């Protein structure tokens, strides 16, 4: 599945200082679906090169990191269970630094 991932507010520093990543993520073999939960663990293993604890806490993103799916607050589209679709844009912005 082709997705665009954007990292802001300093999170880009965790993935080689690249803000925008065009990625291809394989959906779940059984049902052919990809949830935000799946994507998070994919990002953690495949994209984050250092200090994963700055991105994740437990199996979620750290509190203080905003997640937008196609410009929509992830709390509105179903949180971890949001089902992603081809060409979706997912944005992660840390609010933990700076003003």
């Amino acid at each position, binding site marked *: 599945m082709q997705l665009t991932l954007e990292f802001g*507010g300093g999170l880009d520093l965790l993935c080689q200082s690249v803000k925008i990543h065009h990625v291809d993520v394989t959906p779940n073999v059984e049902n052919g679906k990809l949830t935000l939960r799946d994507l998070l663990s994919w990002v953690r293993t495949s994209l984050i090169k250092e200090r994963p604890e700055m991105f994740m806490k437990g199996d979620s993103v750290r509190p*203080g990191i905003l997640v937008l*799916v196609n410009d*929509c*607050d992830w709390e*509105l589209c179903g949180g971890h269970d949001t089902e992603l679709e081809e060409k979706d844009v997912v944005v992660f912005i840390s609010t933990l630094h*700076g*003003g």
Partner: protein
Amino acid sequence: MEEGKRAVGRLCSICSQRRPALKRPKTLEQICRECFYAVFEEEIHRVIMENHLFKAGERIAVAASGGKDSTVLAYVLSELNRRHDYGLDLFLLSVDEGITGYRDDSLETVKRNEIQYGLPLKVVSYKDLYGWTMDEIVKVIGLKNNCTFCGVFRRQALDRGAALLKVDKLVTGHNADDMAETVLLNILRGDIARLSRCTFIMTGEDGPIPRCKPFKYTYEKEIYAYFKKLDYFSTECIYSPNAYRGFAREFIKDLERIRPQAILDIIRSGEDFRISSSTRMPDQGTCERCGYISSQKLCKACVLLEGLNRGLPKLGISRTREAINGSERLHKTGRLPKAEAERPILQSKPCGNLEF
């Protein structure tokens, strides 16, 4: 791609027409982008009116760092000033600490804001005011105490810049999350005098340049959502690790996830603390050397500068009694435990935007 396609069936709880794009942390309402911009702006307007922050004809400087808070503040204030006829003369005021890479970029953002919003910009630099850039200071003192310098110098630099602009007030972009964090830190430090003061929406009304915080009740999350349509520069001061504050910040965000209302609750509890009469507040005088307000013979900035210029950069930071005579000390009641009295006084003070 259709916006908010997954929020099937749900419509904005304000206009009932468009798909919601955001869940307001304060109210848990699900609202669309257009309604969000409108309620965001009107809430700031209400805070300004209810707290009588401005009077018609006043000259107001926005402390502009190029970051999201001050960028949104400058934009919203100039909008509201036009829309509601505040009759204010607005200016942007920036401090150039002399940090290569960090300030260069963020000052570029402020310069773009100057043009976009049509607000005159004044930049004051550490180099001009103090003879030292932050880069030069760090070369001498290392990274450990640099935020002491950053914090003290920036506060004073803003006051001096405001005086040069002849403004009546300075507004800063401190938001509700910042304030909740500062309340917690002041509780953790046992700093009762600062605890009640840090929740005031306006401070320094008796001094030369009052400061106010129109974003006192505004959630950081909403400021992010708002400035998605604005131009801004995002980074943390590269000289600012400040782990202690970082923990407080993370704690606040943890609480917010469980119960968004927590941020406003913490601010309210800060407001409700009262200073007991036995806690002495410092008498304010002026610095013998530079005339800045100070409760001591020399203001903090002059003590720190003297250390730098004499090659004793630890002056003003060190543990010795002699060295602290220039630093403002709020508790001289003699009731402090010994460990507290001997702790380095300025060391844990953050650089950054909270102690303006």
